[in-house]
């Protein structure tokens, strides 16, 4: 890649301020183009196709490492100049924005009226498009589900530079395929996201965080099971390690006053009494818990059924004991999720050893150094279908392959 030549070609399409050089995340220096419109972006894609460049779509790059880094990137296509809220309809409960809009700006726009889902750890820096592209759920996943359930519609540039829409701006819609479900979480392998619409939830008027300490993880998991039997569904339920070796269960409750008070009473009936944060203290703790996942960005995530979580924990603990004794485990007992946080990014060999020992589990890493390309945990028939989708949508593999698997 001749940087100077590439910049020269791109300068025929884009203004000077839209061009830069991207370096970082272990990738070699490549030109970075930040189109300001769909038309400009399409022109850049046509140029990239003619030059046979491999294109990596990017927002602010905070989630670049959430999937494998592609082995070859010739051009970073940035959404950072495609910004702005297109429509916020409080009476419709929907929000439409351009992909490069900071996620924090979206949250600020609806503050006090609506709740934006997911509640993410990297809110300060991430873009809307980056959040959609990574497709990850947030702190509120227990109540609101994953991000892909909140997306009502998306617009994306296809590899042939055509503009494609899926879904729409209304809360109920079954017109055509849900391509937005495919694009959401595709890490830029299928197109360049330009705009999206999200459903919103009513803002909580009351919040509380219930805290219950317990001696062991087994005790904490038993409390989680008691919550499941009582059919309690708080906004979030986390079981974390305390510095003194004990465990702490924290439940985030949010909603109308009557709902929060009722849930709190049921939690106390089920688990016994415990300290409870309310008001601004609860709000601050809720934010801290969302950010905690960010602090564990060096880690990995494993999913199973809630009833199998104890067995999964035993496997994880055995693996950690051998390969990474400093790691900490955070559980979401009502969802069956285990998150492993490492004190420092583990070496490639450690990752491989852990993956080997945890073979057969649904496992996803939150960071991917350039030399670490683990296989995707999916059945062979699913891998083959994903490969066919990539080939059909992007036959020339214009959008950098290798984010999930060797060829997609």
């Amino acid at each position, binding site marked *: 890649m001749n940087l100077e030549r590439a910049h020269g070609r791109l300068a025929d399409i884009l203004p000077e301020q839209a061009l830069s050089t991207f370096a970082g995340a272990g990738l070699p220096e490549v030109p970075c183009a930040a189109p300001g419109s769909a038309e400009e972006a399409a022109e850049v894609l046509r140029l990239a196709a003619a030059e046979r460049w491999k294109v990596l779509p990017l927002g602010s790059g905070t989630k670049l490492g959430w999937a494998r880094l592609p082995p070859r990137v010739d051009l970073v296509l940035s959404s950072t100049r495609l910004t702005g809220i297109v429509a916020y309809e409080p009476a419709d409960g929907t929000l439409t924005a351009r992909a490069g809009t900071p996620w924090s700006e979206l949250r600020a726009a609806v503050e006090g009226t609506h709740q934006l889902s997911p509640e993410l750890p990297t809110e300060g820096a991430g873009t809307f498009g980056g959040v959609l592209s990574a497709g990850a759920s947030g702190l509120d996943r227990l109540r609101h589900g994953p991000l892909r359930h909140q997306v009502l519609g998306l617009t994306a540039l296809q590899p042939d530079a055509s503009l494609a829409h899926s879904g729409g701006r209304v809360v109920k819609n079954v017109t055509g*395929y849900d391509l937005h479900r495919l694009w959401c979480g595709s890490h830029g392998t299928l197109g360049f996201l330009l705009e999206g619409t999200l459903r919103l939830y009513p803002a909580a008027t009351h919040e509380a965080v219930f805290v219950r300490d317990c001696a062991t993880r087994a005790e904490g998991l038993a409390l989680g099971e008691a919550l499941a039997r009582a059919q309690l569904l708080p906004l979030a339920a986390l079981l974390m390690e305390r510095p003194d070796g004990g465990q702490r269960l924290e439940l985030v409750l949010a909603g109308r006053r009557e709902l929060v008070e009722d849930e709190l009473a049921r939690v106390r009936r089920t688990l016994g009494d415990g300290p409870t944060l309310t008001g601004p203290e609860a709000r601050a703790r809720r934010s801290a818990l969302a950010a905690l996942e960010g602090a564990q960005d060096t880690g990995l995530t494993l999913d199973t059924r809630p009833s199998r979580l104890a067995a999964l924990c035993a496997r994880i603990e055995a693996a950690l004991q051998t390969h990474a004794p400093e790691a900490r485990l955070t559980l979401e007992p009502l969802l069956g999720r285990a998150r492993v946080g490492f004190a420092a990014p583990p070496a490639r060999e450690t990752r491989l050893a852990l993956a080997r020992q945890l073979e057969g589990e649904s496992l996803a890493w939150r960071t991917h150094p350039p030399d670490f390309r683990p296989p995707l945990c999916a059945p062979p028939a699913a891998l083959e279908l994903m490969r066919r989708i990539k080939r059909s949508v992007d036959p020339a593999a214009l959008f950098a392959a290798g984010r999930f698997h060797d060829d997609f």
Partner: protein
Amino acid sequence: MQALADELLEVLGPAGVIREPTRLLPYESDALAMVAVRPELVLLPRDTRQTAAAMRILHRRKVPVVARGAGTGLAGGATPVVGGVVLSTARMRDVLELDPLDRLARVQAGVVNVDLTGACQHARLLYAPDPSSQMACTIGGNVANNSGGPHCFKYGATTRHVLGLVIVQHDGEILDLSEPVLDPAGYDLAGLFVGSEGTFGIATEIVVKLSPAPEVIEVQLGLFRSLDAACDAVSDMIAARLEPAALEILDQLTIDAVERSVFAAGYPREAEAVLLVELEGCAADVAAQAADVAAILARHAPLEVRSARDAAARKKLWAGRKGAFGAMGRIAPDLYVADAVVPRTKLRALVARTVEICRERRLRLATVFHAGDGNLHPNICYDRRDADEVRRVVEAGHLILKECIAAGGALTGEHGVGLEKLPEMELYFTREDLQAACRVRDAWDPERRMNPGKLVPTHACLEVRTAALPAGGAP
């Protein structure tokens, strides 16, 4: 044909293959009865293994396949294709697993919607999507259409309740995506499959999320002198960020039909609109929401407000809504059930416009709709023997959809595209949008044998990969 039937008989047994013309009759159409095509064969596999075996044979012989649940679809999604077979899930009716602690169920595709909720009632759980046809429609059909229902206002449509799927692909390959994960590894194949109307493959097993049954349910029913007032009350509730479980409206002609039928709910004849609001949750929260709802209803000068908490009284308030479609048989022999979505801020204007469109064409319009979602169901009563009236019905249906799309709405909220809405797909989507859809379809079914001619206009896909079999038989 004989050779194909014999081969399928070997894997499905005599109970799994229908070929007698009289027994093929019920499969000629789904609830879009105006289009009927006789299938060559109907297959009734018992499970995933049998489905895969049958699909391998059909793949080898290049036979088009139309999947069918209970045939309650209103858009012609299960209408057979010439020279093709219908693969019915009617014998796949087992609840394979019910796990109250993990709040999930694994069911075969042919399990009837209401039976699933019945099966988990003992654990105080429910399956939330509740299409109006829930007494007959199947979970597999719900997955194919991403079905909704009155309670989807609060809970969301089927796609939000599907945790996993087992899919038999076009060539008989089994795609097992049934182990639930929060954030799928790689592309969200299960999410993409839901709502694909049988064009990607056949879901044989479905893992669904179950929701806790609410502690308290209260229904408030507002009777209004005008449809506008009912629509405005709904818009006010959405704007106030209230979250009822359901928000449903019936118009005057529907009220009249209901009151003259066995579903009579005691609605006063001077009422021009009924608004049903169902609230659920804990007792204190329901009481607080009920007070907010009552205040909003009062602002719009209702003729009367009724409320009920116990099951029998609630059932009575719902009787008119649940019986509305049946009651419309009293107005005319045929009913065209339209389905469109509008932004909730434009509810009143678009409802008024549908009334106007039908009035201009001398058509009788009975509207029942999921107001909370902005999901309109303008039901046009007609007589199919009157060719001119049929023409006016089709014209009105097309115009209503056009208006909804122009207002920022959508072509279908829960019925799907099927055959019925193919012409309007090009109003809603651009050619590029449809080509993007075709590329994804090609990845699932490169020969386009799965429910061919449905959902995506064929000519939008530049080329047709598989010609339908010549009339008269499969090779």
